[in-house]
Structure formats: structure tokens, C-alpha cells
């Protein structure tokens, strides 16, 4: 019970997560699986729809005041597109929203993504519970920053 200043508020507010596939990639079956899994884990889930731009993703995240942006790409463009999202966040000074990634990401890219703040980067076949735990963990970090800034 060390998180945040207002315990009851922290506890009662569910994690809010935005799922997005920015870039040219229409393979959203995985997103639907995740959306359902996050919902069943008690989260408020938003899905950005097909083919949003990185700008749309960041705008939506800010307007909806989400805790976590969960990005997924299966088309190999993650180094460009995830970075674009991270750069936009940085440019706009957003520090209280965490970014996690997933998709077909080679192991060699993972440290580079971590470096720009995109964590997780789970591939196909990862257990849902691992992903959920990671999102919760990052959400708690983001929430702490939100509470601190108020």
C-alpha cells in the first residue's frame, strides 16, 4: 500500500489502456485477444481502430488520460513507428503515460526499444498473464507520476 497519496482513489481507478497499431498493418486479431484479456483483468480498454497515425494515437491517449499505450506491429516497421510515438510523447512533454510494445520484434531490436521507453515488446505465443502483469506494472509507474504532478 505504498502507491500514491490518495489510497482509495488509486485503488478504485482501473488501469486505462489504449491499444493501437499505428502504421500500415491490418492484422488486428491479436489486438482483439488482448482487448478482451485486459477487460477481463479489470481494465478500461480503448482500441484506436485500424491504421491510426502516431499523432492520432498520442492525441487519443492524452484526451482519454490513459495510463498505458500498448502498441503492436507485425509488419516490421516497429523501429520507425514506435519511435515516432515515443518521440511525439517526448516532444509534447508527456511523462505520465507509459508505452509498451509487442508484435514480431527481433530480439536485437528489444534493447533499442527499451532505450526509447517502449518496454515489454512481447512476441507471438507470450502468455497473456505476463503481458497483463507488465501493463499493470507500467500503469502503476505512470499513475504514480500522475498523482505526483497534481
Amino acid at each position, binding site marked *: 500500500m505504498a502507491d500514491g497519496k490518495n489510497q482509495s*482513489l488509486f485503488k478504485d481507478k*482501473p488501469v486505462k489502456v489504449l491499444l493501437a497499431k499505428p502504421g500500415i498493418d491490418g492484422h488486428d486479431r491479436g489486438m482483439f485477444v488482448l482487448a478482451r484479456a485486459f*477487460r*477481463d483483468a479489470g481494465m478500461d*480498454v*480503448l*482500441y484506436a481502430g485500424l491504421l491510426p497515425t502516431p499523432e492520432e494515437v498520442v492525441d487519443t491517449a492524452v484526451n*482519454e488520460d490513459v495510463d498505458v499505450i500498448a502498441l503492436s506491429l507485425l509488419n516490421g516497421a516497429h523501429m520507425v513507428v514506435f519511435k515516432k510515438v515515443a518521440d511525439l510523447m517526448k516532444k509534447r512533454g508527456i511523462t505520465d503515460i507509459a508505452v509498451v510494445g509487442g508484435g514480431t520484434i527481433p530480439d536485437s531490436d528489444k534493447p533499442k526499444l527499451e532505450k526509447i521507453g517502449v518496454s515489454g515488446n512481447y512476441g507471438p505465443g507470450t502468455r497473456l498473464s505476463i503481458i497483463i502483469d507488465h501493463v499493470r506494472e507500467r500503469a502503476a509507474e505512470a499513475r504514480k507520476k500522475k498523482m505526483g504532478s497534481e
Partner: protein
Amino acid sequence: MENDLYSDRALDLLKGIYPSTGHAHVVGITGPPGVGKSTLIGSIVPLLMEEGKKVAVIAIDASSPFSKGSILGNRIRMQESLTKHSVYMRSLSTRGLNGGLSFSALGTVKILDAAGYDTIILETVGAGQSDLDIMRLAGTVTVILAPGLGDEIQAIKAGLMEIAHIFAVNKSDRDGAFQAIKDVQDILMTSMQGDWKIPVVGTSTVTGEGLRELVAQMERHASFVPSVKDRGSVLKNELSLIVESELMKMFYRSMENDRGVTDIVGEVSDGSMDPFTGSRRIISAISEKINSSATTLP
């Protein structure tokens, strides 16, 4: 604001901005699932913006009663329109049975109102008492229906007929639209109406039919001068929503932290006290607490 039910900070904030509110036109959009409420909002937003209005959208989605989680799907249906016109949109979830949603919605509306939005669109799935409560926050309530609902119209009229100012029969490009419009008109013909005669508009987001008329009717209703009595009932409704959520807040707080109350809950759940006696005791325990804290208020 959303979820800030348990925070006094939210109340202080709202108290502070209250003098700057009251300018926005709040349009409620409600109706059964699948009639195209979100898509319709996406289509009328540009028309409102064309007239130079600053528009915001608040959409409420049901959360799972088991996990309390939710999939907030309304946004996808209007994303294109939101992006193109840089409209502010916020999704709220109903958060199970914990109540207080009306209060989050009220707070969000007030903040957007104070922020200078001219039109605030409030979307709910038209089911249940809490939805009706939320719709009471809206100055203009629009009920959306679709062809093929059949007897559902009968069911809806019980709750929604009384609060609707405008009816829209969406998907009017489909078979049976004419019949549906006529059904609603028939129901309206036999119900009591005040000075405002409730219009029924056929709309289609595919052909664009009726969208302008719908917007025109919303604006006509906005300028329909509300009587002093109406204004009073709006304020009274706001007050009762706030009092209700405050009481709810106290109750849930006590359920968790208050020894006296948790003891009663324990006794009821192990069967040694009946729930009616239990609720009386809890209410008197909470009122005692209110009395003792009232002396410390300024």
C-alpha cells in the same frame, strides 16, 4: 475527474469552476445498442463545427459486472471525424454497480462547459436507471432508434419517452424505416406533450439524409426558451445527483473503513441479522458520522 468519486479535491475544483458554467448546450444521445449512436455522432459533429461551434463528446460504455473492466468502443466509430475536426472526446465506463457514474458525467460536463465548449454531446447506451439519470444532465435529449426494433419501441417508451425532446430513426435507408418513424409518431400522438412538440427525424449516416434536420432540431430546442420552472428542475436534478453521490461515497467508505458498519455487514452476511435491520443500523451509523463532521464544517 472521472473516478474521482472518492476525492474531495474534485468537489473543490467543481465548486471553483461552477460560476463559469451554464453556457454549453448539452445534447444527450441515447438509445438501444446497435442503432448507430456513435456513428451518428461522428456524422453530426462536422455539421455543428461548420457553424463555428466548439464541440466535445463524452461517451459512456458499460463495464463488465464481473471484472469491472470495459472495452470503450464508441471512439472507433467516430475517430475519423474526431481527428479531422480536432474534437475533444472522452470515454467513461460504468464501473459496475458502484454508482457515482452520474457524478463523473456531471463533473466532466461542467469542466468542458467551463472550458468554453458550445455543444457537449453525451452518449449513453439507453438502458437502466443510471442512463436516465445521466440523460437528465442534458438540455436536449435525443433518443435514437432504428427500423426493425418492433416491440422494443414499446419497452423503450416506458423509460425514454418521458425524457426525449427529439427522436431520430437512424438507418432510414433500410427497409421498414417509414414504418418505424410512423410507430414513434403514433406513440407520441397519444402521449402528453407540453409546449415543445417532439419531432421525429429519419436519419441515415450512409446517405446523409436527415442529418441537417436533426442538427437543426437540436438547435431549435436549445433556443426554445426554458421556463423558470424547467431551469429550477435542472438545478434540482444536479443537486440531487451530487447529494446522492456524496451519500454513496460515504456509504462505500464506511463499508471499507468504519468498524461499526463493517460489523453490521458481517452480521448480515453470516445470517445473524436481517438485512432490513442492518440497513437501518448502517444508515443511523452514517448519519451519526455526518452529524459529528457537520460541526467541524465552516
